[in-house]
């Protein structure tokens, strides 16, 4: 499991690579929460295009970060969802609370209200 981060003004872009299961969930949660201590971050974009496996432990991680961002009146988005992920995101109702984009660029444009 690898975590990469990028900043674009008040947007934090996180790229997750590898397998997000219970074993790796704690590390991802801690890494994200450390970055989110910076309260100037209002938007979180999770780039999942490099995630080759995820189970419901990942759902828990996403919902947890969604709640943190929501308290700031911000928004959490996901980008680059493949078909295994699509199925579990669908089943768990995550599309109801997280906006999904094809890729990070479109997510940023969506947040900025471009296009």
């Amino acid at each position: 499991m690898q975590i990469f981060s990028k900043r674009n003004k008040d947007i934090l872009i996180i790229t997750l690579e590898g397998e997000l299961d219970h074993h790796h969930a704690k590390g991802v949660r801690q890494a994200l929460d450390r970055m989110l201590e910076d309260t100037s971050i209002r938007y979180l974009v999770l780039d999942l295009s490099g995630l080759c496996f995820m189970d419901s432990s990942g759902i828990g991680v996403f919902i947890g970060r969604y709640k943190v961002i929501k308290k700031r009146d911000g928004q959490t988005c996901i980008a680059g969802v493949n078909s295994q992920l699509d199925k579990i995101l669908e089943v768990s109702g995550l599309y109801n609370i997280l906006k999904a984009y094809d890729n990070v660029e479109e997510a940023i444009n969506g947040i900025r209200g471009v296009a």
Partner: protein
Amino acid sequence: MMDKRNEMRLQFLSKSQNESFARAAVAAFAAQLDPTLEEIADIKTAVSEAVTNAIIHGYERADQFVEIITRVYNYSVVIEVIDQGKGIDDVELARQPLYTSKPELERSGMGFTVMETFMDSIEVATGPGQGTKIKMTKHIKNNEGEMGKS
């Protein structure tokens, strides 16, 4: 056609780093049925849910054994995930979407729902202090002998 019946049993320590090993091993065994990539992903996800539950809910410690029995038949795979842990009091409640007894671990309560959605059937045998056995079946529509199927 060739008789594909086959069986493996796997026991491993209830350490979280074995979750990925467990799903990889079951997937490697199920591969003999020539499942699609989607079917393999479904099986891995369901196994991951059941094994994670055995580790965090059943045992709560890392020195016990989780067992997985995998049987393949000509058109299906049957997977049992077994722990000798604390068992489930109220199975109906446990199977509700979003119900979790461990919100402090940020569990989503979606494990059973995922298993039910990704597999064709699931049976739960459990009781307080009696451990838990999850038995899941998935049909595999392989190429060979497709004519015999509806």
